[in-house]
């Protein structure tokens, strides 16, 4: 039975030999010729109007060698500025509702029912407060940022970004399509890892996977925006603070792009040696975005899904935070033990023990880092009048109040800058790592994709700390 099949294959081999090498090209030529003929017969262009003038002008601006990058920079800055300015009011409203009104009500409800103190504490001081924090800190910037980003995507701006970055990627020894997967990473790194499938060469695909982390994901945008507002925006006069903080976020994005190139280049010169392959990139026509559908899908697909994920992680994290701050060993809580143990390392790299502990607790999801940092800061510094016990999240109705808490916890400009850098550079979240493992099927590359960014994060933060103390900033 199988011999007749083998015979078919042998016949094919013989015939292939007889036909020579040219026939594949001929087949493709014939195919293209036929396609051109059929299309030519069906298409008429009365008056043959050229592409719309507006689109041509826009493309000249967006993909020009000189104006392309400033244009990209301006669009990014505008998006962040709208996000930062717009998020203030709803943030304060949400905080008032969830933290000032609902939280005391729930607590007295718990006492009324007769919950034991530890249950009341675990449920409301731990779990509820961390959820409330996540919602009030994250929801407003997300609800503004994601629709804006989706509009730009729907409009057709992303391929232009890829076009601008293509030559840089090739110089770094990577695939030009990596620009697209990087853009995807600005939404979610895990989704972007899957999207690297569009890169054919395994070498270049691995480079894209290993460096995708430097594209700031959904979970990290709120952290960066908040810290930029508190520490960098507040340095500027009030009417300029929005602009200054959006420029700070843009700067972090550009640093991320810089590290994408640097690490891609490093990898392609060492463990992943090889030539960059060519590809053709199609610049699609600009299409008027569908506003309502964009609003709907970015609310459902991005904002609510990300928020839901954050809340799901906030529940166990809130419980852990409350437990580590209320279980005592040798007179002080576990949290304080860990924080003081991590402090020396934290200080060396311009952060502190609280931030490092928060990162450990928040490893499953980047989204809850800031709430965790704030809860732990209050706990360790024991700020009077804020919160009502160990591990209790406190009422903050504005970013100013957040800033006060953080400054009381010994935060400086350096801490803020380094937290932004650390947030940009540190290892990807557990979901992304799992996706990398599934896509590469290799424990080695998965480990590397966590270790490389983490090492870079520590080194960069350390260098910044050293430099700033050298010039007497901190």
């Amino acid at each position, binding site marked *: *039975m*199988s011999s*007749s*099949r083998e*015979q*078919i*294959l042998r*016949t*094919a081999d013989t*015939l*292939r030999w*007889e*036909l020579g090498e040219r*026939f*594949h090209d*001929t*087949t*493709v030529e*014939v*195919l*293209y010729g*036929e*396609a051109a003929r*059929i*299309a030519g*017969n*069906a*298409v*008429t*262009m*009365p008056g*043959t*109007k050229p*592409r*719309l003038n507006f689109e041509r002008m826009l493309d000249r601006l967006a993909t020009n060698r000189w104006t392309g990058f400033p244009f990209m920079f301006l669009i990014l800055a505008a998006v962040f500025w709208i996000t930062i300015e717009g998020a203030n009011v709803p943030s304060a409203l949400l905080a008032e509702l969830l933290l000032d009104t609902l939280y005391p009500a729930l607590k007295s409800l718990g006492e009324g029912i007769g919950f034991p103190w530890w249950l009341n504490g675990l449920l409301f001081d731990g779990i509820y407060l961390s959820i409330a924090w996540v919602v009030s800190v994250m929801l407003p910037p997300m609800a503004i940022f994601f629709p804006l980003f*989706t509009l730009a*995507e*729907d*409009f*057709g701006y*992303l*391929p232009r970004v*890829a076009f601008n970055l293509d030559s840089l990627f090739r110089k770094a020894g990577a695939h030009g399509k990596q620009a*697209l997967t990087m*853009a995807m990473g600005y939404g979610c790194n895990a989704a972007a890892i*899957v*999207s690297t*499938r*569009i890169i*054919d060469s395994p070498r270049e695909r691995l480079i894209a996977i290993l460096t995708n982390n430097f594209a700031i994901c959904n979970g990290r945008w709120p952290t960066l925006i908040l810290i930029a507002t508190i520490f960098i925006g507040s340095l500027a006069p009030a009417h300029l603070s929005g602009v200054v903080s959006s420029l700070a976020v843009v700067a972090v994005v550009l640093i991320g792009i810089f590290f994408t190139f640097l690490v891609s280049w490093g990898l392609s010169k060492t463990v992943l040696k090889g030539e960059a392959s060519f590809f053709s*990139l*199609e610049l*699609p*026509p*600009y*299409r008027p975005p*569908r506003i309502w559908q964009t609003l709907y*899908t970015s609310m*459902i*697909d991005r904002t609510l899904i990300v928020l839901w994920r954050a809340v799901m992680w906030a529940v166990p994290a809130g419980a852990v935070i409350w437990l580590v701050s209320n279980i005592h060993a040798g007179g002080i809580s576990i949290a304080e033990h860990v924080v003081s143990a991590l402090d020396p390392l934290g200080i060396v790299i311009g952060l502190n023990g609280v931030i490092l502990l928060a990162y450990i607790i928040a490893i499953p999801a980047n989204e809850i880092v800031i709430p965790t940092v704030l809860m732990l800061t209050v706990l360790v510094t024991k700020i009077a009048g804020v919160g009502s016990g160990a591990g209790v999240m406190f009422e903050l109705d504005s970013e100013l109040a957040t800033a006060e808490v953080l400054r009381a916890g010994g935060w400086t400009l350096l801490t803020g800058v380094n937290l932004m850098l650390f947030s940009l550079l540190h290892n990807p979240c557990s979901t992304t790592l799992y996706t990398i493992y599934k896509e590469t099927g290799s424990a080695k590359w998965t480990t590397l994709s966590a270790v490389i960014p983490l090492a870079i994060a520590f080194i960069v933060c350390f260098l910044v700390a050293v430099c700033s103390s050298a010039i007497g900033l901190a």
Partner: protein
Amino acid sequence: MRNIPEQCEVCPVNKDARLVRLGASFANSDVIIALAGNPNVGKSTVFNALTGLRQHTGNWPGKTVVRAEGAFSFSGKRYKVVDLPGTYSLLSTSTDEEIARDFILFGQPDVTVIVVDATRLERNMNLVLQILQITNRAVVCLNLVDEAERHGIRIDDRQLMRELGVPVVPVVARSGKGIPELLRNIADVASGAFVCRPKREWTETGSLKKAVGVLAEKIGTEFPGLPNIRWVALRLLEGDQRIIDAIRSGELATLADRQVQNGREEKEYVVQS
């Protein structure tokens, strides 16, 4: 083709009476549809318009890299829709092209809907012709006709239909214009009411034609009832490893069997990626 007046297309009663979007519940489907096309021609938008799902759409090529599946019911039949990654051709060996090719060939969809960008017909036609070599049950969905009009491009869809031998339906997927027509044509091809006759002979010239003929005869004897023998022969001559494996393992025979039975049982097909 245009016997439904335009008011009816946008009339909610018409749509609701015949099209029921089933979202992601595609168990027990009667008909399986594959959505193929170049990158960024609106496959996901067509997918959403058919299934009522909200697969994320974006204006850039390469957005869909994994298959998305959804379902709808139309005139009492249940349809399962598989959204394939966009590709320019089925000739090379990148993962996305392989997923698309393998599904059209080995997944044996009842109808392959080829979504085409009306503003870039010539480039899109390369893929259409390649797909029509594999399957003869296809509908061409001429999408973005509004954009083409904006650019002063007019497309004679009847002429196109005569040349290709399969239905060609002008559509604006974003607004849902032409979707009822598309549904009717899909249903006709699936039920056999419309018999597609795609032309295939043009691919082979001179000595190649002879070689393909010799090989096709052998393949036809080994795997009777195969719907695309000459294409398989051509791929074999090109040394396509996936086809070589399918012949060696006899996987091709299962395709022929399905064709003979013409059975409508649920075909589970898993893409190895």
